[in-house]
């Protein structure tokens, strides 16, 4: 996934955590998930991302998740922080 310098990052690349890269704008929601547990939890991760995006009414966004087996609350918290940082950067 390609990002510009408007993108924000959140999280780490440590086991049990995830790295979120997020950029507001574009057309619709582009979500890319890379995870060691993708076969089993790829869909669950996508649902968690959508829940946060819905909560903040973010409809046009590019988001990349590099997951290292994080649990759902960590995923939601990282995505939420990324969204807040991106909104703050836009002055919203």
């Amino acid at each position, binding site marked *: 996934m390609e990002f510009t310098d408007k993108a924000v990052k959140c999280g780490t690349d440590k*086991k*049990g955590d995830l790295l979120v890269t997020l950029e507001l704008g574009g057309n619709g929601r582009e979500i890319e998930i890379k995870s*060691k*547990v993708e*076969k*089993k*939890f*790829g*869909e*669950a991760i996508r649902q968690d991302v959508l829940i946060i995006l819905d909560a903040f009414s973010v409809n046009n966004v590019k988001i990349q998740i590099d997951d*290292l*087996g*994080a*649990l*759902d609350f960590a995923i939601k918290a990282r995505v939420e922080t990324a969204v807040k940082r991106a909104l703050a950067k836009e002055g919203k």
Partner: protein
Amino acid sequence: MLNPSLLNEINQIPGFENKKAFAGAFAAKPNGRMAARPIKFVTPGTNKKFSLDYILDAVGLKDGMTISFHHCLRNGDAVMLYVIDAIAKKGIRDLTLAVSSLSAVQDCLLPYFEQGVITAIDTSGNRGKLGAYVQQGKLKKPAIYRTHGGRARAIETGELHINVAFIAAPCCDKYGNINGVQGKSACGSLGYAMPDAEYADFVVAVTDGYTETALDYVSIPQTQVDYITEVDSIGDPAGIATGSIRVSKSPAELVISKYAADVIAATEYFRDGMVFQFGSGGMAIATASFIREKMLQDSIVASAGVGGVSGFHVQMLNEGLIKTFYDPQDFDVTAIQSLGTNPRHHEISASAYANPFSANPYVNMLDFAVLSATEIDVDFNVNVLTDSYGKLLGAPGGHPDAAAGAKLTVITMPLLRNRLPMLLDHVSTIVTPGESIDILVTEYGIAVNPRRQDVTDMLRGKALPIKSMEELKAKADKLTGKATPVEFSGKLCGLVEYRDGTIIDVIHQI
């Protein structure tokens, strides 16, 4: 448990016509006589030492035969590559590779599979490139995964007939006596090579520790060895034995180990004169260290230890906390030295250790065994062979053997590994049946197999975090969230044998 249509499919495969489905840990009713090897005759002074090339001709190795190796050199082994390369150069093809196990180092054998030199595998485990090769369905017939005791049984009953056994020998005298405790490539106990040496048509020692002087410590006697060939090195000492023991430092693993020790100490099996087995993983060693403290506190001494040996087991042996040790395999330098010097430290064969078809394997002495697991299910079935996606990564080893023999089998494992739950409705591959497992210890609590009401009673009122399997499962599911089920629908490419030779599960192509 095994799907009847799968068994039917297995029975269509040449060589597997008589395979039966697993029917219970002690359901087998074996009869008949053990296999025999050819009569040998050697006049005094006969030379046994030749080049490998000469020996391959002398033993009459031909297409379609079965060759065997042991895995006592673990991830340092150089002998399999050396021998199989020589065989390949002679143009011999279509061999069955019968090994006590395969390590990552054996990835180097892949070209010989691709050339058709080896077309079948009979092992305890294989992983890496060879595991992938099996799961791409490239072998002529499904690979067989056996337990250590099951392999000895197969050899001794004649089910697994070995034409030529090549035995990596850290030390070998000119008469053919072998030991594993001396020489620059010392590996310790040669327990896993002993059934091969006793039952193969021909036995070839491959040594980098040749001596003209008769050995004073003999693991495999000259009466079983037909030929000797000398090489510069049979393996890399760094891969053969680790330098020091690894005690777990992970807080979660230490909690599990502490619970395991507390549970064991609360049962009647923790008593003076007990016999036990601890694996050599970090958590098993940590559990052993907690048990050691309790033994010192209560002035309790174990009459024997059984199974693989590491430096920590040796420490307890030297402290007098374990009176004697029966040892089929050594993992570190301390253990190897102890085997060579301590008269209370005994080398035993894989058959003596775990073969269910004998008058009494040593695993039957066990009061308790502490084992690990990759996955466990709500019926206590254990997987130690494949990962959460069905990919080969481990080996049955002695797991089903020790679990069957021990009066109390304790599984120590984390409830989750990363996000993956390790307690499931169904394990990816059943290796050890739930009926052999008595207690599961995780960082979130302890579950007792409902089959063991007596153990439940022993643990009552002991302030232990006892939970039902269902409660632990619900905890795991809550933490990980809902997983998409993974289907194992690929074609059959491996048979998982229980120790008695019945099929307990299968491996699928991926």
